[in-house]
């Protein structure tokens, strides 16, 4: 009889599964719950993108692509990055097409981090950075972003956490779960702290298109002096409603991208071919589709935010992604208690804030990637719940 516990890698055993087991198991039993729990768009992938994928299949484009991605796609990614964020990359050396942004994050962390290296992770944030750092034998160092700072990373917080062992800073903005964004000036202040160090930056900008400020999104590598130390991770899932296509990309300095490509080549070979053909259409011809989706998200953002304010819950105004992150501390429950009770009593599924790091305790993440009708119904139920428990 095999004893798998002895066989499995200790690091793998030490990291928890993503999310909160007990709560997620409970959700799985509730078929009829209405949900504000998803981290993906409700829109269908724009038809012209789907059609481009179908056409590539009809033409028999079903083979591996070059490891780093179709040359046409890499070129279009560079055009897009230049057009949208005014950063230039060389499509032959500075771009890697990956299986979702998540793969790019894993690759970069594994390419940089050695035993004992510290990885600075602003939290609350997406769940993959910490386990990736741990698996690379690094040490994840959380930096708690605070509601009073609009969940932004403050330069003095960063300065405090830097040690001789700091290898990498994760910049997860626009942020999942808080919806926080960092504008150009705020990013410049972060750059000021980094400029005399060797610290590299992984700027996870997967939600870049979903930014609702007038200034719009600023790419971290567009900040003076930061291009040489930054790998920008982006992808198609959020902006183009393409989560299931599993396609992302990394842009950055050639030596880093080359190392990431090496790892990618052994682990993955190449990202899905059909998705890559579809993504060329996304990069070239879908600005209008994206801006219509952004307009719709923005309407819902204001709507759901007003909803939480009017039921008396404090909720900072998120300017990015498609989440609000209301504070539920006034009800005297933990995030998990709140979410479990809400699910049981009102059949509404939202995500406990502490799923995104300890500093998310006292908050819940609500997605507004839903129709206004669904959001209205969910808000009505949450309001009833809040009134009953206040």
């Amino acid at each position: 009889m095999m004893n798998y516990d002895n066989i499995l890698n200790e690091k793998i055993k030490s990291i928890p599964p993503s999310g909160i087991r007990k709560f997620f198991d409970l959700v799985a039993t509730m078929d009829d719950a209405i949900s504000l729990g998803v981290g993906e768009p409700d829109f269908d992938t724009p038809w012209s993108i789907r059609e481009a994928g179908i056409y590539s299949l009809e033409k028999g484009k079903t083979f591996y692509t070059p490891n780093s991605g179709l040359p046409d796609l890499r070129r279009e990614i560079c055009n897009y990055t230049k057009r949208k964020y005014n950063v230039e990359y060389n499509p032959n050396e500075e771009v890697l097409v990956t299986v979702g942004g998540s793969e790019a994050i894993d690759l970069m962390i594994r390419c940089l981090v050695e035993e004992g290296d510290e990885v600075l992770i602003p939290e609350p944030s997406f769940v993959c950075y910490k386990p990736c750092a741990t698996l690379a034998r690094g040490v994840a160092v959380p930096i708690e972003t605070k509601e009073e700072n609009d969940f932004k990373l403050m330069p003095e917080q960063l300065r405090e956490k830097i040690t001789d062992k700091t290898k990498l800073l994760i910049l997860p903005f626009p942020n999942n779960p808080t919806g926080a964004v960092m504008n150009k000036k705020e990013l410049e202040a972060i750059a000021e702290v980094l400029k005399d160090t060797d610290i590299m930056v992984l700027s996870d900008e997967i939600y870049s298109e979903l930014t609702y400020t007038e200034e719009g999104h600023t790419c971290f590598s567009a900040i003076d002096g930061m291009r040489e130390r930054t790998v920008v991770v982006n992808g198609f899932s959020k902006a183009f409603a393409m989560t299931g296509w599993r396609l992302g990309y990394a842009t950055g300095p050639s030596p880093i991208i080359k190392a990431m490509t090496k790892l990618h080549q052994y682990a993955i070979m190449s990202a899905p071919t059909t998705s890559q053909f579809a993504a060329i259409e996304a990069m070239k011809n879908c600005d209008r589709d994206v801006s219509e989706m952004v307009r719709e998200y923005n309407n819902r953002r204001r709507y759901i935010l007003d909803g939480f304010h009017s039921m008396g819950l404090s909720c900072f105004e998120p300017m990015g992604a498609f989440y609000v992150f209301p504070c539920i501390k006034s009800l005297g429950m933990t995030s998990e208690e709140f979410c479990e009770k809400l699910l049981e009593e009102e059949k509404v599924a939202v995500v406990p804030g502490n799923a995104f790091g300890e500093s998310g305790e006292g908050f819940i993440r609500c997605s507004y990637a839903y129709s206004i009708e669904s959001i209205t119904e969910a808000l009505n139920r949450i309001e009833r719940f809040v009134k009953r428990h206040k």
Partner: protein
Amino acid sequence: MNDCVDILKILEKDGPMISRDKIAHMVGKSEEEVNAIIAGLEKENIIVGYKTMINWDVTDTELVNALIELRITPQRGEGYDKFAERIYKYPQVKSLFLMSGAYDLCVILEGSSMKEVALFVAQKLAPMESVISTATHFVLKKYKEDGLVFYKDEKDTRQVITL
């Protein structure tokens, strides 16, 4: 103007049934401001009217739609507009467009039977002085009109929770 566009887009998508209070929250304005903006848009005829899209095919009511291609000779000093007016005043004419290409006016007609529509073309449109020719095409099935798909399955198949 951007606020107006936001409101127009919402009304275009959801129609007048969406409450003004809801619109106000969506665009970040008070209900009074939204009412004033919409009243202004109606007055300027930017909002021309409000309609309900109905799939008559699944009711017992018999309705026939046809597209008529009309080639005409525009009248001196009047152009197409005057002639167009003579056509669109008929209640049977649901839409009328001036076109580029092989014909001049595209007339969308509605009637209770094919015969009624054909007779309307033969008796009202074809004999008009300026009309050179007509070509009638009957609509067999509507799949999508004004951005709305008539037969669809909109079930949300996403996972309940994803991080």
